[in-house]
């Protein structure tokens, strides 16, 4: 890749940041170049975010229909999935799945809710409802 081929069209997921890339200058030396990003990287990040968003919205509908607890919604909203939530909390996946049941969720102690809230970076009050 030559310097003039380094993507500079911009990538809205980068929030104005630039990333370092390596490309060939006119003397053939490979040097570091700040890139504003481009369509290729933007597309795949947006695709990954959209993937998460779809899960989040599906969870929201389930919570509204009374078949799941807000915990499931927040899990996806805070960019986790079940295996990851299990890893960061140390709870078994089957246990977390049980906490997705609204009746069980309603009975959870503040300690457990706090643990979920902590790893997600939200408050116990937030986790009890949909935003």
């Amino acid at each position, binding site marked *: 890749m030559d310097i003039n081929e380094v993507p500079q069209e911009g990538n809205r997921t980068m929030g104005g940041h630039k990333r370092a890339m*390596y490309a060939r200058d006119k003397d053939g030396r490979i040097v570091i170049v700040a890139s504003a990003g481009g369509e290729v990287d933007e597309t795949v*990040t947006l695709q990954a975010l959209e993937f998460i968003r779809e899960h989040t919205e599906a969870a929201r509908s389930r919570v509204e229909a009374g078949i799941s607890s807000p915990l499931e919604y927040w899990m996806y909203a805070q*960019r986790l*999935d079940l295996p990851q939530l299990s890893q*960061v909390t140390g709870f078994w996946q089957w246990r977390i799945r049980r906490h997705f049941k609204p009746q069980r969720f309603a009975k959870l102690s503040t300690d457990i809710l706090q643990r979920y809230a902590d790893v997600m970076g939200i408050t116990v009050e937030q986790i009890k409802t949909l935003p």
Partner: protein
Amino acid sequence: MNMRVESFQHRHAAHCESGVASSMLSHHGAHISEAMAFGLSGAMAFAYLPFVKFAGFPLIAFRMPPKAILKGMVKPFKMRFHFETFRDQAKGMQRLDELLAQGHIVGIQTSAFWLPYFPADMRFHFNAHNLIVYGKEGNDYLISDPVAEDPQRCDAENLRKARFATGLMAPKGLLYYPEEIGQKQVTPEAVLRAIKKTVRVMLGPVPIVGVRGIRMLANKVGKLDTADKLSLNYVGHIVRMQEEIGTGGAGFRFLYAAFLQEAAEITGREELKVLAEKLNVIGDGWREFALKAVRMIKGREAFDPKLLAQMLHKQADDEKVFFQALKKAIA
């Protein structure tokens, strides 16, 4: 409490770990570029790990696992590298302050999710991010994050959360700094040894690693079902691993090419310059693959898994020829 290591210079880098290694060693008098840190630790690789899930998809790594670069610095620079983790979060923060007060710059491992200066769209739960803390002003730590163009700041509370994030590859408050650097110049022997290591990994017998790993991925892509909506996400995931996750483009191939140019100077082997150029062309091949994949994701072109698989097989062919030539060049 205000302190700052004045002599420290922030540098922008493609990848966090090689960036930290190069800034940290350069600060201590062993002036090396990011590409040299990357190449010298033999960090370039390829691995397709179907059993490790990353965001629901198999992990596709274009480099060696986390900490390989830092640890790879020990031998070539005859370093004593101090690594420390903490059970007690308060102690971990206190130790960081102590080291700063003593005038150290301190490397730490963090999660990306908790760093407030990260763009919102990039804040994923990824625990193997690395950065350097070079001072503190009031409640803010002064941060040299290699993947950011300029120095950043992070408040104590968020930095604590980032350092003590739990989950896969949990940092456990890890901090590190060199205690001694016995060798400040890069030797030709160290360079050749590192290249040999990379050649061995890339041409090795393990079916999911190196050139064979690329073929395995190609076969997997060739079998993707065009009717399954997740197939395009899978393709996007490959491109994301290759272009997005701090690679300097083309899954670190351009970065390694930069290393080979430096390696040619140090070892006096002109052939390595020619090979750097060849790797550059291979990097362009990876970018073409990414471009094609994105056109399919965007629906500008029909989704054709066979074609993508073909492109990946071509990459495997080219890399095989390349690494065999590299093996000869250092023999």
